[in-house]
């Protein structure tokens, strides 16, 4: 095997397949798997390298090869020779542009391993795809064009791989054929890269001089052109490198519960993928966040109960005791449970065209837990080209920053450095449902560990019962001048006559006190509503019927307040007044100022108003007087009697 000539497949065993298929299958069945990514800048030859790996492992069939030969002549960039890049550039758009614009996954086998390759794009604007590809990879191949050396993109990709926690880095110095296989070129690039790598915390990497186009040092090394090179070929290295995920098995047992399996009353199983450690029947386990303990009764699979299960296996556990456990809980080793917290320092990669809205509530998914979370103003943004820390107010597409994240419920977690499963999360926009960010927990914030919820004896129910009413938040939203304050005032007067205990929070008034530090930027508007929501929530805890009159232009923030409150307590009242009518009224003269440019960020003029999609109540102020509107609202929300008698 070691004597196999260059450019001939050294790792496909056609002979074995033909002679003893069962022996081959036995070998294939016991192969391990390595997932890796290839990244580099445009024209570094990623697609060509992957095409070459597929070609050498006979993963290209004759019909594909015939199509490839035709395509190569038509649109290829290699003259009459085969352009391997065309084989892997999948989507029509990118074939025309000649660039790879999305992550593509490819597969090939050698005698020892099966490989899944994520082909990651080199373009600056597609950082998000690279992070996506890197998140499941055990190893990264960073391609450098021998003629160009270490580029800005090389640094960026190395930084991202390191950030995502890839421990195995291969520096593939490609296109050696175009520098006459000159050792000094290779050595210089390796030295330059080594210095940079060290500066960002990459202490080990393997450098290999290759030509993806000609095939040097891909399957066997050294090629006749690089006799000065004494290291492994790329494939040798990929076949033998230790997969670091294997360390997961040495860690304490953790399994996020995906699904509770209840076929009948006699069986209750907890299904999940083991994130780390091992488990046996009889092992003591702890369910988090409740902290309740039990022991494992059985590990159930369709192939029969197991004596033991390991990290990476998908199983169903039954427990000896009937304890509460549902999706989102984590079953862990009883004596080494993970932590829980609701405030974290995180590193966030922003993946969406819509910037981070500081203070806005997003869905956060970590393992099988989904909670509502807000991101604070970033402490800093990382310039991925220079690794400098820059001041940042928000994060834009492809930007990376460090920021605190607060969740509405405690999360069972581990720092990302210890566990990808319990430390990595995504953020999802609550309105569009887009995945807007990927995040990694660095650590929980001490302050949340030391602040516990203080239970009080007089509950919110007793406060409400004493007032003989059901607390509500009547949330008036609408354009400036639509009539929110007027109608809210009228509703409060009428409720007062009905002996209801109320309080009206008015936008202008709150800005004189509680929120006088806030302006009218988007971030400040979000914070304004968050504070008002928190105050309204405290008032409902005190048993009050709260009326709020705020423009509250963004759906997401109104939803955030709704989510803070008990089911049914938030009544969204859309004061529906067309912009022309409100502008015509212009009670405070603000529209005039906004139109003349004296007033910036004015809702309806140069700042958007997102009308409610499913408001609980709509009042049309063109058709109704404020009194009629108020009567209509009260009629709709009655009865407000307390359901619990004191």
């Amino acid at each position, binding site marked *: 095997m070691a004597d196999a000539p260059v450019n001939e497949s050294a790792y496909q065993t056609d002979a074995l*397949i033909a002679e003893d*298929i069962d022996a081959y*299958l036995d070998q*294939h*069945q*016991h*192969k391990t*798997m390595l997932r890796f990514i290839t990244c580099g800048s445009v024209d570094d030859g990623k697609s060509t390298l992957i095409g070459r790996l597929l070609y050498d492992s006979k993963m290209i069939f*004759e*019909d*594909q090869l015939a199509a490839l030969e035709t*395509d190569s002549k038509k649109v290829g960039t290699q003259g009459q020779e085969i352009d391997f890049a065309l084989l892997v*550039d*999948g*989507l*029509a*758009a990118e*074939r025309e542009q000649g660039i790879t*614009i*999305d992550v593509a*996954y*490819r*597969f090939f*086998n050698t005698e020892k391993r*099966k490989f*899944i390759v994520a082909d990651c794009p080199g373009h600056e604007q597609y950082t*998000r795809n690279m*992070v*996506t590809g890197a*998140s*499941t990879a055990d190893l990264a191949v960073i391609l450098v064009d021998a003629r160009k050396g270490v580029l800005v993109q090389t640094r960026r990709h190395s930084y991202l791989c390191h950030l995502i926690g890839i421990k195995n880095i291969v520096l593939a110095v490609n296109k050696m054929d175009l520098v006459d296989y000159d050792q000094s070129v290779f050595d210089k690039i390796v030295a330059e890269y080594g210095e940079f790598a060290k500066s960002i915390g990459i202490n080990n990497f393997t450098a290999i001089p290759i030509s993806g186009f000609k095939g040097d040092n891909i399957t066997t090394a050294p090629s006749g052109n690089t006799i000065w090179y004494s290291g492994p070929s790329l494939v040798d290295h990929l076949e033998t490198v230790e997969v670091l*995920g*294997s360390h997961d*098995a040495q860690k304490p047992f953790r399994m996020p519960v*995906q*699904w509770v*399996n*209840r*076929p009948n009353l006699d069986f209750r*199983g907890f*299904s*999940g*993928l083991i994130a780390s450690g091992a488990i046996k029947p009889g092992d003591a386990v702890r369910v988090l966040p409740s902290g309740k303990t039990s022991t494992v009764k059985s590990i*159930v*699979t*369709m*192939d029969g109960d197991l004596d033991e299960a*390991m990290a*990476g*296996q998908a199983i169903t556990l039954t427990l000896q005791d009937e304890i509460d456990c549902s999706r989102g809980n984590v079953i862990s080793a009883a004596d080494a449970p993970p932590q829980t917290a609701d405030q974290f320092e995180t590193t966030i990669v922003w*993946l969406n065209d819509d910037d981070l809205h500081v203070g806005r509530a997003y869905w956060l998914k*970590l393992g*099988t837990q989904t909670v509502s979370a807000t991101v604070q103003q970033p402490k800093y943004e990382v310039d991925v080209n220079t690794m400098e820390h820059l001041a940042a107010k928000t994060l834009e597409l492809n930007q990376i920053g460090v920021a605190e994240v607060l969740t509405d419920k405690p999360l069972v977690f581990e720092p990302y450095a210890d566990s*990808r499963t319990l430390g*990595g*999360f*995504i953020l999802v926009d609550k309105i569009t*449902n*887009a*995945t807007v960010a990927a995040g990694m927990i660095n650590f929980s914030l001490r302050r949340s560990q030391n602040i516990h919820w203080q239970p009080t004896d007089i509950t919110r129910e007793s406060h409400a019962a004493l007032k003989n009413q059901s607390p509500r938040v009547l949330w008036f939203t609408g354009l400036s001048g639509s009539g929110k304050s007027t109608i809210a005032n009228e509703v409060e007067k009428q409720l007062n006559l009905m002996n209801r205990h109320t309080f009206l929070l008015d936008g202008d008034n709150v800005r004189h006190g509680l929120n006088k530090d806030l302006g009218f930027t988007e971030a400040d508007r979000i914070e304004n509503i968050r504070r008002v929501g928190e105050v309204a929530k405290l008032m409902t805890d005190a048993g009050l019927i709260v009326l709020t009159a705020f423009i509250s232009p963004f759906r997401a923030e109104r939803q955030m307040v709704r989510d803070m409150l008990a089911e049914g307590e938030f009544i969204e009242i859309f004061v529906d007044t067309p912009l022309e009518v409100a502008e015509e009224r212009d009670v405070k003269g603000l529209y005039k100022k906004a139109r003349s440019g004296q007033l910036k960020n004015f809702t309806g003029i140069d700042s958007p108003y997102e009308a409610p999609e499913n408001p609980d109540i709509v009042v049309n102020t063109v058709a109704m007087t404020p009194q009629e509107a108020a009567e209509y609202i009260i009629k709709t929300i009655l009865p407000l009697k307390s359901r619990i008698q004191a």
Partner: protein
Amino acid sequence: MSSNLTHIQRLEAEAIHIMREVVAEAERPVMLYSVGKDSAVMLHLARKAFYPSPPPFPLLHVDTTWKFRAMYELRDKMAQEAGMDLLVYQNPEAQERGINPFDHGPLHTDMWKTEGLKQALDKYGFDAAFGGARRDEEKSRAKERIFSFRTASHGWDPKNQRPELWNLYNARKNRGESIRVFPISNWTELDVWQYIQLEKIPIVPLYFAAKRPTVERDGMLLMVDDDRFPLEPGEVPVERSIRFRTLGCYPLTGAVESEAATLSEVIQETLLTTTSERQGRAIDKDAGGAGMEVKKQQGYF
């Protein structure tokens, strides 16, 4: 220790994890069941994922009425064995207009399969549909996410896919929108065959070589599976030892001449073959090199 898990074990665990995520997060999941070998593997994985419960979703067969007879037989048997509901949907308009692969060319696939699938998903209100597509099958598949988001009109926008990180899947969507989920995305054809062998999964006998009546059309060997096959004047079906690498509508699915009658032999032949699996399928050739990508944007699975 997880390094000791074989690649097949890792792929199985990944697929099971994906199926459980969908069941936990979607309102009305369904499994597309085409009776082929990939569907057989999918059904088997679903049974393992939820054991001892039956998989908590129905099977949906978008039928074209032109599948091989052997497929219909196995379909009904497998659904019953799994304890799952089997929904069979046939596009009524295609039925009424008598759309068939002989007279209508690409319209056959479009009406029965693409339109039929959309109609079926709309009719039952499924918001997540499992499919057995693999990334090694075809170039545009290689870039599709495992959770592939579709608009209310079933469109796929390859430039606007949700980033998919770690094994965290975002199953959130608005009313009317749906998700196609591909749990065996990372499997290769060899993996599928090997899994069938290891797990002893029943598959349609047409995958194994046997003497069958055939005719040759445009370089493709077609099997005369019933008397709806319009023979040319003077054309007589010839008995040949053939098998199929993929199964679809019998008039559109090319056979290969083969003597491989056991799983080992089939796998051996698959590995030594020099043409790709989808080569026997007419669908990829429509619309030039970008055939499948265009079809997917229109809502083909």
